[in-house]
């Protein structure tokens, strides 16, 4: 399995994501700069959190114009697995790879804290390592994580089981407590919490490992993953 971690000008969780997938999970992985136009040869693309281009206009609004995004769309259209975390989620919604939008937290403040989440669907490529309805704790760190989608979109998300993670105590005003959603096809996930910050006990917990393990199994074509 070979993973690409995208890096936009100003990205600051790209190295963390690379560390998680390569050094902690032991998979082959490479950083791919935003001006690259080719993602062939990769089995998985990770879009990192933090900020991109300063996010001065709206989070993710400028990153979507980066050359690599054309390649990313093609990669996703071909069924490749893509995960966007935090700013990555914002970029994927701005780019139209995921439904909805992320607006300012209801408090208008940046929030960094460990947040309990409920695994709302453990049948996706991103969540098979978790039990159904398992509560996990992942850190959040964002100012614009308040998920919005129009009522029809929201209803469709729920009906299709596209909601993968929900906040147990909604910290930011997200509709339906949504913390992470997939596209209709189920190969693209966006989530505001940071699984890559929860892969080492030394740093406070390992609940994020499941996201990476699920993906690794999915890309390797394993049929089922033992529930932990």
């Amino acid at each position, binding site marked *: 399995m070979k993973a690409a971690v995208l890096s936009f*000008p*100003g990205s600051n969780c790209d190295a963390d994501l690379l560390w998680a997938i390569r050094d902690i999970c032991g998979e082959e992985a490479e950083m791919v700069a935003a001006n690259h136009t080719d993602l062939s040869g990769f089995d998985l693309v990770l879009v990192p959190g933090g900020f991109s281009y*300063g996010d001065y206009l709206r989070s993710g609004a400028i990153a979507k114009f980066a050359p690599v995004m054309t390649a990313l769309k093609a990669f996703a259209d071909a069924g490749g697995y893509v995960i966007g975390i935090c700013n990555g989620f914002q970029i994927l919604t701005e780019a139209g790879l995921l439904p909805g939008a992320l607006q300012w937290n209801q408090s208008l403040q940046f929030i960094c804290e460990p947040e309990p989440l409920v695994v709302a669907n453990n049948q996706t490529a991103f969540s098979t390592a978790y039990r159904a309805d398992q509560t996990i704790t992942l850190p959040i760190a964002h100012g614009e994580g308040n998920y919005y989608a129009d009522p029809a979109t929201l209803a469709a998300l729920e009906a299709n089981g596209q909601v993968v993670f929900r906040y147990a105590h909604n910290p930011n005003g997200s509709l339906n407590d949504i913390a992470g959603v997939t596209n209709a096809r189920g190969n693209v996930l966006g989530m505001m919490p940071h699984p890559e910050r929860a892969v*080492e006990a030394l740093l406070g917990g390992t609940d994020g490992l499941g996201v990476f393990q699920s993906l690794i199994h999915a890309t390797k074509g394993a049929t089922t993953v033992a529930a932990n």
Partner: protein
Amino acid sequence: MLQTEMSPETIRVKKPYLDWGLTEAEYDRYAELLGRLPNYTEIGLASGMWSEHCAYKFSKPVLKGFWTKNDRVLMGPGEGAGVIDIGEGKAVVFKAESHNHPSAVEPYEGAATGVGGIIRDIFSIGAKPIAVLDSLAFGSPTDPRTKQLIDQVVAGIGGYGNAIGIPTVGGEIRFADSYAKNPLVNAMCVGVMDKAKIQKGKAAGVGNALIYVGAKTGRDGINGASFASAEFSDEAAADRSAVQVGDPFMEKLLMDACLEVTDRHQAALVGMQDMGAAGLVSSTVEMADKSDSGMVLDLDLIPQREPHMTPFEIMLSESQERMMLCVRAGSEDQIIALFKEYDLDAVVCGHVEAGHRYRLLHHGEVVCDVPVSALTSDAPVYHQASQQPARLAHPAADFVPAVPDALATLKQLLADPNVADKAFLYQRYDAQVQTNTCVTPGSDAGVVRVRGTHRALAMTTDSNGRYLYLDPEVGGAITVAEATRNLVVSGAEPLGITDCLNYGDPTKPEIFYELAESAKGITAATKVFNTPVISGNVSLYNETNGVAIYPTPMIGMVGLIEDLTTITTQDFKQVGEGVYVIGATGADFNGSLLQQVLTGGVAGTLMPLDLAAEKAKQDLVLQAIRAHLVSAAHDVADGGLLVALAEMSFGRGIGLKATVDLPAAQLFSETQGRFILTVPAAHQAAFEAMAGAAATHIGTTEAGTLKVTATDQTIEAPVAALKQINMEGLSCQLK
């Protein structure tokens, strides 16, 4: 629109420099150094370079007394930041800086650019910034203006640190009326590097190029805060603003690019310096000074954000996110190409010259030609008169508090903004980006692992103006001791300190006394704790209507944890563990938080500090932690023993049952040099053997309830109820 440039003769007669902070005597001295009358640009440069901020003209004699070197110090004060060896080929780099005045005027941008500035100091040495800390002091949180200040300062710090991707892992927020109109905003940054790659701000080698990189130069912050405030009071100039706006995106690119230069292009690089106070002039002339070089800059080549900028404005602008590099002749293109890859402006704007002149060209004319030393080593240094303030000559009688209901007093202190939980504020900072933060804010020190080693760094900032107000010397020593305590209880051996010296007007003998005496105390303590001062910053004139803030040295300290398994936090971990106190408790209430809360101020003779005894206790704590005997550790600080025990119980809701041989009032005494440790039952014998009489067993951790029996009262309350009070103490006031 702009000031028409006066001729040298008109300057001599009209004395515009008085508005820029120079005195007539300083003007005369400068003219003498030049051997002629300075022109408009030249006198402007002197006003920047001879300011306290650049020349330390009042504080230099004090700073000279600091202890700055031990066998681990690789680089002491004098460069962008200090450097200490941490083993395994790595070094830690750190420095703190104050942004009090800019933050008072424009809190968001003032705080944000304070963080941006201190980060540049760190990467200018070649170190990757790994953590930021912030030390803040405000007036009463019930004041509407203060509420807004706090909100905006916190937003600004987070706005910059979060976006650039450096975790904010610690800090402090203190409250006293003396900061009401003059808040303190001090920021510290810590970086890590290979010790072989330390970089200095040099410009040596005739013909080598000076390369300007980063943001364009605009008319922001020209000539520092005095210029800014003059403008704000001038309604006619209302559509001009001197506020500096931070651009963390630009700085992220600048940081990554500069680190790539120091990492991979060492052969091409001669030196690098950030542009801070007095912008272009201070960065370049200091680089020349440190290498004993001459230098010429062509100002037409400087990237400019606005048309028609004068040499004065270009040289003294404090636009953010700019760096100056000195690069070997022939390597310019290679370096410029690297910056272009990051989409950054990089231009050759001058060269190192033979001789010792500092020359500036503008539109083909020489607009400045002065000796480098006139702007640097020949700047004046003043030996100020010092006089003990009257309040210290005749201290009030010892404060004897009445504590009829110790539980009520505990609740009062837990709700005091100084003790109250600040999580709702520091949760606005990203504490975990870079995924190395082992201990996030909320314990005694932030702890960050050093990748590629088995080590971690613990870091803290501490200040206590209340104590210094009663005794600057002892208070200075206590501030250092308090910082070392916070590191030691986290399992770290203190390495060294940086400081921000926040005081009033140094030309007042009483203020200078406070500064000089506290430096003495700091020095005495640093020698005992083996924590040299490797960097720092001075902020003077912190006064409103002639009344100074409490003398407030902020101590930023970094410690080394050699084994990741010995990282320790303050929360009680499990029920049934032994609770021990190290250090005796006396009746020390002068300067205490209790005195502040009960009387609205502090008075009396400050409690003493026995440095040698303190060191022995700290060594014991560290030894016990390193022997894996300790499950939680916390120092006793603001509010005393009972507050400290309550704080330890909040993390996991685990309380304790304890008995102390003290009257209840003394549970709020602030006797120095005390620690609380918990020891799992299996290790108690070993711990007691190690500690001997130094540790007193006071009780055992228990589920859910805090119960402390003193000789005259028993204090008992559910942990959850106390925690609630502590959580709401400040957050409710700021709503």
